């Protein structure tokens, strides 16, 4: 019995020694003393930025014949901190089907918090950008790893703009020989569509021109879309709106765009036996666009 116990004690001791020798061998390889040296490699993945919020834009009222600056504010967020956002890439594009995109010229970081930057972007819209409630805002920004955040859910409305101008207000014939037809005026009128609407109506209302009891009837005046015409002009009717687009050369302001104009040329058939003098119309002629 005692022999058996001794055997067990000896074998257990041998086993412990064996274990200790193995551990001591292993530790001798990696460690010296109580300090162990090693290399720990920890790789953190880049967190993609997001654009959680784009500020609403109230109805945009464009300005006739020129540009209008729109401001769009959006928040960009990055879990790696706002410094991970590449501020220089912040951009806003205004878009609408069939329209030219309008992209921000500058975006300013107006506020930085730990993980977020608030950008304020300015965009120039043109007077001829179409009216509609379906203009979209696309706000984007990259982070330093060139990952792009985007939010294009916000929409806004562009109001209707009727803005038509004419370059001159007076038409003159410095000298007209009586009894001759198709005398072209010394100047024409150019009307320009400075808004975002299309027009189907271009009416002219003419009046008689008189001097000391002599009359050149409105029916002697005519208009055309081309210079040097001697046929097919559209003739006026006294105090009556005449559809100028009935003339094949006058289209009217049927579209809108960067440079939509219509030039109207004026002609007169001067009757015989008129007194010499300056003839002036009874009332100002009217150009009506609708």
């Amino acid at each position, binding site marked *: 019995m005692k022999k058996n116990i001794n055997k067990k004690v000896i074998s257990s001791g041998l086993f412990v020694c064996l274990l200790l020798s193995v551990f001591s061998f292993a530790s001798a390889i990696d460690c010296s003393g109580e300090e162990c040296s090693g290399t720990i490699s920890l790789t953190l993945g880049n967190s993609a930025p997001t654009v959680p919020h784009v500020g609403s834009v109230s109805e945009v009222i464009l300005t*006739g014949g020129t540009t209008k600056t729109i401001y769009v504010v959006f928040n960009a967020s990055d879990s790696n901190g706002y410094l991970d956002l590449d501020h220089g890439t912040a951009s806003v594009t205004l878009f609408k089907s069939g329209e030219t995109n309008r992209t921000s010229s500058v975006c300013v970081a107006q506020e930085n918090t730990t993980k977020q930057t608030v950008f304020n972007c300015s965009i120039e819209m043109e007077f001829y950008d179409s009216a509609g409630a379906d203009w979209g805002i696309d706000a984007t920004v990259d982070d330093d790893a060139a990952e792009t955040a985007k939010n294009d859910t916000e929409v806004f409305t562009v*109001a209707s703009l009727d803005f038509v101008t004419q370059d001159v207000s007076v038409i003159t014939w410095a000298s007209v020989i009586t*009894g001759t037809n198709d005398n072209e005026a010394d100047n024409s009128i150019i009307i320009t569509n400075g808004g975002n609407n299309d027009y189907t109506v271009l009416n002219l209302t003419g009046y008689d021109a008189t001097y000391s009891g002599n009359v050149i009837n409105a029916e002697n005046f005519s208009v055309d879309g081309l210079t040097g015409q001697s046929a097919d002009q559209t003739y006026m009717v006294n105090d009556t709106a005449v559809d100028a687009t009935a003339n094949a050369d006058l289209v009217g302001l049927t579209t809108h765009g960067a440079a939509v104009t219509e030039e109207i040329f004026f002609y007169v058939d001067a009757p015989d036996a008129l007194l*010499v003098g300056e*003839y002036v119309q009874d009332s*100002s002629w009217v150009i009506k666009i609708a």
Partner: protein
Amino acid sequence: MKNIKLFTIVVITLFMANMVYAGFASTYLPKEDGKLILEIEPGVVSDYFIYPQNLGEEKQLIKIVLNDPNNTVQNLLEESYEIMPDTQSDEFPIKLEIKVPRGTLAGTSFPVSYEILTAEGDVEKGLVSFSPIGFEKTFYIRVKELEKNNSLLYWIIGVIIVLVIIIFISYIIIKKKSKKETNGGTYEISQ
């Protein structure tokens, strides 16, 4: 003998409407079959804005001539409006408050048109110095159905359901109690 024809030279000047750099913006309205439609709820005021602009160097005095046969525009417009030079965008809003009576049938349509003219010129004779000259715009007010407020209905249904449940539970409790009293009640037997 040679015939000599005498020619007379005349000078003709036609004044067209004065050159101005003016126009106006207005509230966006969607088009249906070429008509501008403003959808409103009966009894509720909707706003429509006109924004005159003046990019010229002289002030413009304009007036708005309203054609509103159904009296849908509730507010009175000024006799004339003075639009100062360099008035752009929405700097000078003119509001039309539009309302149709409560009870007006959905789908009913009312035309409203307005003309923008100079207040200085002789309109009767066509002297109009506001550009677009004598511009007229027409839109149609269309009555839409009032949005049904279903939340009240849901509340009523909810309250009824809760009441029914309470009554049912009360009934069960009372019934059980009375059954218990009938079966397991103690009775005093007087000798």
